[in-house]
């Protein structure tokens, strides 16, 4: 440091000789250079420091930016409008669809065209002809689930044609080329036309479905007959050939005499739904088609005069969406009642249209759908989140065909004027809504609304369940039991070691407890999961007896020591070492409880405490909240202890001395003076401890079963927000709703803990000022 001393003062005296010291000019240069360096340091450090702080701020900004898209509303905008590709004069569009890249569309017409066109321009690229006889008219149209790409056309001569269109992709020279194809999945003797009526009666209504169990067809004929046709594929074990067997059944008509307007078959070939002009839907159980009958009839319209104008299954063919002539849109599905009979049950309503609903288009891969009314207004809905996401002003006329692009990013609508509207849909996160996160939701296939977190499953038809309630409850539960264990222990320990303990002992005890804080939580979690959980399961009575006996025996020992032990003995242990004396007591109580545990179990719980709990009606998981409470409590004890000990220790001595001088006992001084003064510090200690418990990941991950359940039973597990992130983040699709919801969970954790810590810190700083003022 001495080299800093500026020798300028002596320089003048020595200048007459040849000085080794710098001349005035060099000195000035040196000074300039030092000045520049000073400035450089100032700005360099400034930029650097601010950069680091900015980086830390970036965490919040980035998390936020990943979450924001969740809450952006959906939009439907016009892509292109053109005359429907191919002939339009007197030709009705039956169906439109496109491939998953929206690079090739198909329009099926009543005249038997299959026109493959470019969705961008409407230019016809390929034309195929359906084998319809020349002199017949199309009287009914139906389509199976969108992803099966199968349609059925009913004719006035009682025949039905089932056709499947396809888009074949080939990669040639790195470029994708798509070409259209057309096939007929069922054909009798090479003839794809199926004679359903048998006597030439026209087909009036039609339903078709293609599922894992083959193709099924239901038709209402002009003479009122209701016919069910099944094509069951059987594969011969010997030859590997598949043979399609056709079976036809006749069903009774629905009980009401109203005209049938729509029919639907589900993908498992178990139910047929028939909607009528009277606003009713009839459910046929066709699991055994020979004795298929109406199980349930239900009015699905609120308006007594309304008719069912359109009906469609959502993805998976479980949920039924019904559109009425009163413009209402509602969701229904079969729920089994007490007698195990499926009943059509009203699940939820969506925003109504002003005109009768004419068309419903389900999405290919999600539980969303679009509805179009007679005025041409189109609305976008999502079932699980009970939202109507967007409304599109209209296509001018009633729709003849409406369908989604497979990735739900485009919507194709053909109006009665035979103009095709290609609409661009931006709807990445429809699953999100307040009700989906926080309220009970009636999920498909469940008997009642519930809070469920289940983000993924093996099947494509899966309905993601994003209720945050189980995770939030789990987080609160884990933190609550941890605090229940840690707060009394830590604060009492802090009181003793700050106020009653001798200085020397305190010098050992405080660092020992504080070093716990550095203990990796993965170790606590592993001990909790692999050692503590089975230990507690096998020694349940010991846990209870430790809780009861420990405080009692401590006080008893205190009484014996202060009252019954001779003063001579007491003098050997200095004041302030009571805690050291109690260590053997604690060990003894622990050992006694554990070794007496089996005896207690035999005496009180019929030999098996766990079974006893189950008999009483309490579910017991091995890895439960009790284990988590102890392990996580262990992790937060040092935090709470250290901060509240500081707060108590720093209470000015003259306050306590004044109190003691007035004749208060040490304990009175403690509770009436010290604790009151230090309470803000203790509060902030608890807050910081709580923040740690809320965000702790490894302990809950390892010491619970991670099942997202909603209860506060101490003997059951939970799944917390943080553990959920750790479990599911690596497998969430980047940019998807699930991914962003996990980011949302992280952001919520960030904000909660940040706010808690800030409050604690401000309280603590106030306290510090108060102490210095006292």
């Amino acid at each position, binding site marked *: 440091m001495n080299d800093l001393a500026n020798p300028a003062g002596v320089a003048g005296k020595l200048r007459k000789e040849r000085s080794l010291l710098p001349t005035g000019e060099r000195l000035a240069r040196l000074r300039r250079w030092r000045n520049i360096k000073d400035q450089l340091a100032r700005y360099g450090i400034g930029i650097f420091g601010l950069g680091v702080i900015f980086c830390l701020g970036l965490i919040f900004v980035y998390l936020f930016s990943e979450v924001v898209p969740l809450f952006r509303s959906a939009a439907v905008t016009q892509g292109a409008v053109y005359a429907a590709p191919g002939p339009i004069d007197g030709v009705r569009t039956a169906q439109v669809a496109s491939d998953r890249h929206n690079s090739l569309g198909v329009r099926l017409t009543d005249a038997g065209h299959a026109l493959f066109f470019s969705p961008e321009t409407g230019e016809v690229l390929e034309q195929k002809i359906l084998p319809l006889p020349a002199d017949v008219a199309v009287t009914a149209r139906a389509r199976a689930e969108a992803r099966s790409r199968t349609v059925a056309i009913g004719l006035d001569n009682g025949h039905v044609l089932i056709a499947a269109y396809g888009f074949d992709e080939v990669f040639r020279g790195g470029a994708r080329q798509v070409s259209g194809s057309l096939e007929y999945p069922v054909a009798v003797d090479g003839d794809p036309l199926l004679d359903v009526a048998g006597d030439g009666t026209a087909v009036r209504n039609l339903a078709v479905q293609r599922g894992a169990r083959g193709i099924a067809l239901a038709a209402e004929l002009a003479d009122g007959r209701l016919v069910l046709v099944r094509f069951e594929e059987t594969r011969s074990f010997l030859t590997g050939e598949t043979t399609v067997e056709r079976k036809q059944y006749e069903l009774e008509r629905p009980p009401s005499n109203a005209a049938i307007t729509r029919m639907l078959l589900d993908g498992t070939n178990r139910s047929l739904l028939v909607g009528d002009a009277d606003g009713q839907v009839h459910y046929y159980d066709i699991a055994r088609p020979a004795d298929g009958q109406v199980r349930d009839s239900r009015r699905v319209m609120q308006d007594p005069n309304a008719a069912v104008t359109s009906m469609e299954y959502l993805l998976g063919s479980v949920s039924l969406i019904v559109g009425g002539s009163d413009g209402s849109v509602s969701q229904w599905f079969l729920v089994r009642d007490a007698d195990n009979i499926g009943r059509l049950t009203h699940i939820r309503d969506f925003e109504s249209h002003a005109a009768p609903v004419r068309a419903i288009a389900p999405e290919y891969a999600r539980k969303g759908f679009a509805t179009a009314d007679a005025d041409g207004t189109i609305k976008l809905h999502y079932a699980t989140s009970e939202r109507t996401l967007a409304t599109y002003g209209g296509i001018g006329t009633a729709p003849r065909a409406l369908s989604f692009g497979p990735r739900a990013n485009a919507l194709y609508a053909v109006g009665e004027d035979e103009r095709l509207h290609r609409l661009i849909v931006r709807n990445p996160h429809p699953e999100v809504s307040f009700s989906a996160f926080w309220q009970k939701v009636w999920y498909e296939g469940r008997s009642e609304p519930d809070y469920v977190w289940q983000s993924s499953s093996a099947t494509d038809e899966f309905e993601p369940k994003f209720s945050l309630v189980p995770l939030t409850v789990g987080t609160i539960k884990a933190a609550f039991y941890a605090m229940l264990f840690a707060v009394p222990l830590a604060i*009492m320990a802090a009181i003793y070691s700050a106020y009653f303990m001798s200085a020397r002992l305190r010098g050992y005890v405080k660092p020992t407890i504080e070093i716990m804080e550095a203990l990796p939580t*993965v170790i606590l979690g592993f001990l909790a999961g692999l050692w503590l959980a089975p230990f507690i399961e096998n020694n349940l009575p010991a846990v209870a007896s430790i809780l009861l006996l420990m405080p009692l025996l401590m006080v008893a020992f205190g009484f014996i020591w202060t009252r019954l032990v001779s003063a001579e003995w007491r003098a050997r242990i200095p004041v302030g070492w009571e805690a050291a004396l109690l260590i053997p007591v604690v060990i003894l109580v622990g050992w006694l409880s554990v070794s007496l545990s089996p005896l207690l179990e035999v005496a009180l719980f019929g030999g098996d405490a766990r079974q006893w709990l189950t008999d009483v009606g309490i579910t017991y998981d091995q890895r439960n909240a009790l284990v988590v409470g102890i392990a996580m409590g262990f992790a937060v004890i040092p935090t709470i202890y250290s901060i509240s000990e500081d707060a108590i220790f720093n209470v000015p001595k003259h306050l306590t001395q004044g109190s003691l001088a007035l004749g208060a006992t040490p304990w009175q001084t403690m509770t009436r003076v010290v604790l009151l003064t230090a309470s803000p510090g203790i509060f902030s200690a608890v807050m910081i401890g709580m923040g740690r418990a809320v*965000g702790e990941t490894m302990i809950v991950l390892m010491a619970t079963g991670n099942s997202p359940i909603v209860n506060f039973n101490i003997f059951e597990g939970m799944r917390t927000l943080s553990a959920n992130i750790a479990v599911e983040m690596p497998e969430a699709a980047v940019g998807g709703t699930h991914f962003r919801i996990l980011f949302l969970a992280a952001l919520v954790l960030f904000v909660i803990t940040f706010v808690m810590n800030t409050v604690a810190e401000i309280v603590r700083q106030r306290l510090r000022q108060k102490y210095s003022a006292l």
Partner: protein
Amino acid sequence: MKEWMRSGTPWVWLTGGAVAVSLVMVLGLLLMIGVRGLGHFWPSAVVEFDYAQEGQQPVRVLGELSRSETLTAAAMREAGHAVPEDQEIVVRHLIKRGNRDVTGSDFVWYLGSYSSEWRYPSDAMVLERLTWGDFIGYLREYREDGEVIVSGSEARQAFEARLQETQRMVREIAHIERVEIGAVNREMERLRLVERGLNLRDELGAAEREQRQAELAAERAELDAEYAALQARRNDLRSELRRYSIVAEVMDGRMQEIQLGEIVKAWWPNDMGFFAKLGFYGQSFWDFISGFPREANTEGGILPAIFGTVMMVMIMSVVVTPFGVMAAIYLREYAKQGPLTRAIRISVNNLAGVPSIVFGVFGLGFFVYFIGGGIDQVFYQEALPSPTYGGPAIIWASLTLALLTLPVVIVSTEEGLSRIPASIRQGSLALGATKAETLWRVVVPLSAPAMMTGLILAVARAAGEVAPLMLVGVVKLAPSLPVDGTAPYLHLDRAFMHLGFHIFDVGFQSPNVEAGRPLVYATALVLVLIIIILNLTAIAIRNRLREKYKAESD
């Protein structure tokens, strides 16, 4: 008594009890990890007893005692075990029988009441094997080329002598496979990527492309030859190894032939003296620290995990120290001390309390997907779609932990800076030094110990953090270490193994939890030791520092 109660003394005793309970818990925990972690390497005695369940033929049981439990008979019956009618309390022992390949299950509970007295046969042998876990039995024959060379009690000597040699060969094979063939494979992978990169570059002329491809083909042929030579050497060693075997009797009397090449270690625990055991213990512990994991991590050593942890922490330190110190200097020395700076200070402080998993999520989204994915797009196009930097990598883990520990370093350095007495600063300024000079020559050297403390605390925290790493870089089993002999020697894009994650993985996701359990304790012990030593160092430095300035500022 009443008076005593009213004086509040019971409460004082209760609070004292809280301290005692806390202490017992801390020390008990450390003691448990210590005893169980260290105990695993002690060659435990092999017990033999006859186990006669009611109405069944007695069977001979041979194995190591893992632990014992006392349970109620009702709970046992509930779990479906046969327990004598008259018993209410049952003692049961978990016996490690080994021989997973012969008996199916290597850990089995035996009720104390059905067992005969325990014997400790001195010729009971334990083998540590490359596969199927430990073998416990009696050595009967030593064979070469399938022919019995020695049988009976002399077999042990011949076997032990040959084992030395086969162990050396096994090590050589491992070296060939892990190091030499690994290097060839990496080189081939590099060539493949170069070739793909060549195809992606459109601007190359046909002639030039062909020439380069020819060069690549020549290189590949050379590598193929090298590979074939290595493989031939390995196969020679293997067939040599296959010549030697032993035959041993297992607990149910069956004879089992075991290749010497399969055997890692052999010992006769009941025949060892205290010092022999001590020597064995040291050797086992060293093998554990310096070995590679086997059998889904439930056996072998933890060298890659230790190495990965240390490496990650080192890279993190290199990042976090300059940034943290600079930020602290800015906040304390240059920033205008006002409400804004105070707010920033509180925020930085509170970031230390934000759950680590949040940093993990940030690291995954920002570092791995955004920056890593970007780097892949620009520089590693030929390797896509398999990620180079866009997947779990040690660099992202280090950066994520650097962010996580930045607050620790900033707070600690700031505290150090604020403890330097104003008189020292003023002295320097009075002598004409500029602010920067005062800073670099006076303030920073004096507060260096505080920075060290901050760094050590940061390292201690980082070494124990697992949750964020699970998202950004840690894997169950890394095929290669982040540092090796191929250029550029330090591979920042590789995933790595970590002690903390190793504990989680072996303890909770391994197929044989019981077999892995002692290893988990041992790993936990290593981790705890590293962290406690680091923390104690930090505390010691801090205390020395405080004393020093107390003296200087007087």
